[in-house]
């Protein structure tokens, strides 16, 4: 069966505030959705990303690792893949990101996942 990655985009500033009715509604909707995809057997894995303010972008140019605060921000490149690393800290994640073959031409954005 073909596999698909569903990438979720939305304006972070429009996220409902924690504990607000809108946020409770969203959590409920996610609960229902998770049950539905589980029952249908279509969801192999998935998780939420922490906000883009926690992002770190890694590039390697001329053999040098360049680390910048914030999400990947250029528009010429397109999203080409998703990897999930289990690392002890950000330095280890940066080290592995700097070894991804595409890092010398593109950019690897590291985003912590929500725990649990």
């Amino acid at each position, binding site marked *: 069966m073909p596999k698909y990655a569903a990438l979720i985009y939305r304006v972070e500033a429009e996220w409902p505030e924690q504990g607000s009715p809108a946020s409770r509604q969203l959590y409920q909707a996610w609960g229902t959705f998770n049950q539905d995809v589980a029952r249908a057997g279509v969801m192999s894995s998935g998780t939420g990303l*922490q906000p883009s*303010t*926690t*992002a*770190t972008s890694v590039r390697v140019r001329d053999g040098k690792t360049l*680390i*910048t*605060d*914030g999400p990947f921000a250029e528009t010429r490149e397109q999203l080409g893949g998703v990897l999930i690393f289990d690392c*002890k*800290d*950000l*330095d280890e994640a*940066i080290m592995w990101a700097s070894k991804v073959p595409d890092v010398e031409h593109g950019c690897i954005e*590291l985003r*912590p996942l929500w725990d649990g």
Partner: protein
Amino acid sequence: MRSVEEPTAQAVERVFRQEYGRILATLIRVFGDFDVAEDALQEAFIAAVGHWQSAGIPDNAAAWLTTTARNKGVSRLRRERTQSKLRDQVKLELEVPTVMAPDEPDLLRLIFTCCHPALNQEAQVALTLRTVGGLTTAEVARAFLQSEPTVAQRLVRAKNKIRQAHIPYRVPPDHLLPERLASVLAVIYLVFNEGYVATTGDGLIRRGLCTEAIRLGRVLLGLMPDEADVHALLALMLLHDSRRDARMREGELVLLEEQDRSLWDRAAIQEGTALLERSIRLEANRPVGVYQLQAAIAALHAHADSGAATDWSEIADLYTALLRIYDTPVVRLNRAVAVAMADGPDVGLRLIDDVAVQLDGFHPLHAARADLLRRVGRRAEAATAYARAIALCTNVVERRYLTRRLAEVG
């Protein structure tokens, strides 16, 4: 009559200035969290004001504060133990000794964490001044002419990122050390420069920032006594700072050449020169570094008896060497000025023209160009260049100087 409170308040203030960063660094390691550590330390300082007044100032005030803050932090975490994650943390806390003293390696951990390259530089600077330096958010904001909420938000965001992205609380391993140390040195030098050449506003020398940067440089030197670049940066800052009393006369900026050299701080020059020499000896086989070259240039100025007696050709050579490892339009401009002093204004003007397009919005370019044009007697062109420099310059003191020059050629 001397009030009883005064010595205690003074002692607390003194310990705060000297020990804040060291104590906080240890508390952050213990609690694994900046906010818990900061709140606990603040409570401990408040407790110290009352307690030291009745019981006297303890022999080891830093250990007293560390222990008190640790206990306050632990009780806070106990109060909040409803959350399972926090309960685990409290368990950890109970294993640490009852009496604690701040630990030097912790301060180095804190410095490297604050200057981690995954934080943007503005955040690195704010966080370093706030935590290592013990400045209040309001003080950081004032020093950088920003609003307090802006700085507060920047600090919150930086601490969140450290927590959420798991930026490690450690001194980087050897293979990462050179680049990570470079980012620490850049932060300290930026603080110094912000104080030394205020980019906007009335105060030409925001003394506090220079003093703080030099203090941070000394702290870092104490923690990393074998690093050539740490010596070189402290040397560079001391050599620049030695001129502080001569740079202003009756509210006017005094150019290096025209400064009263008897006002230069000889002790700072001596210390800076000795640090530079040690820096060069420390890593004699390593290629010369950016801070070493800049400190060497500052040292040549510091040891010259007058503007005319300055070894400008040596300074031009040092700028040429700097250009090889740090090629920026500003370094090219500085080299052009040195070459003009060594080989005459015409050569200098040609070199300035090479960067004129890139630095068109940079007032020192127009000021330097105006100066050379004035010397070769091209008065009308000099006047145009001074006018352009004045239009771009945001510093009141410097503008007054340029306006005076414009009147001379106009």
